[in-house]
């Protein structure tokens, strides 16, 4: 039996039980930084348009394979999650009373990300998939 009050905790990381809400925060931070890192690369990639079609098409071409596409799916997931969780944080920020529902809201954000990512991933991976 899970002890009383422990249900909301996932794993014991470095000796402290990580709650879903703490995980949600960590995910927000990681996804934000990840997207920022991608943005850096994306700017370099896009700036090659200034060098004409050959250079640009070659640059974009580097990312037209399965591993890169998988990376884009992860990027999409990160952004979707970051956005949904950002909305959750903002909702609580502007209506502090909502903090009382932080657990259901957190579960909602995580669940919604998963649900949204299923069709998105299927579409994005279509060119590389047997059904595509």
């Amino acid at each position, binding site marked *: 039996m899970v002890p009383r009050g422990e249900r909301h905790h996932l794993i014991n990381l470095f000796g402290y039980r990580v709650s879903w809400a703490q995980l949600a925060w960590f995910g927000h*931070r990681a996804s*934000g*930084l990840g*997207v*920022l890192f991608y*943005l*850096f690369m994306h*700017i*370099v990639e*896009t*700036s090659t*348009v*200034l*060098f*004409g*079609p050959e250079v*640009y*098409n070659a640059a*974009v071409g580097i990312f037209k394979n399965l591993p890169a596409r998988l990376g*884009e799916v992860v*990027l*999409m997931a990160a*952004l*979707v999650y970051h*956005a949904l969780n*950002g*909305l959750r944080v*903002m909702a609580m*920020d*502007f209506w502090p009373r909502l903090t009382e529902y932080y657990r259901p809201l957190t579960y909602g954000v995580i669940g919604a990300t998963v649900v949204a990512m299923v069709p*998105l991933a299927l*579409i*994005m991976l*279509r*060119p590389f998939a047997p059904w595509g």
Partner: protein
Amino acid sequence: MTTTTRRPRTIYTNPSRAARPKPEASGRERFWWYFMRLSGLALVFLALGHMFIMHVLVELTGGEIDFAFVQSRWGTPFWRIYDFLLLVLAFVHGANGARIVIGDYVANRTARNFLIGSLLVVSGIWLILGMAVIVFFDPNTAPPVGPFS
């Protein structure tokens, strides 16, 4: 034999007057707090919209991202402004986020200031680069133009 290290314990006298640093530049963090939220709200449409178009719609319509695609897209001012806004907001939002993260984990003042300074410089250069691309890209001239030619 172990020796005793004595660390004098603070006795707090005159606490209401002593050791109370004047709060510094309080408006600054307030600005960034609100900025993060408002830019976040805008980014829901801008960033998710961008991703949706580039990775989902293009896929669904069987299109391809290449030079011609960019050419046609940045041919309209609407998309230029859209992408410009996205770029600036996402960059400032993200860079400030990174600043916050550094602030959380780097307690040492010097190291923190150095890292945040570097972040500022690097992001500045990148942001200018990005803005330049959007502003100077000329869909009608195929050969290299602009500041890098």
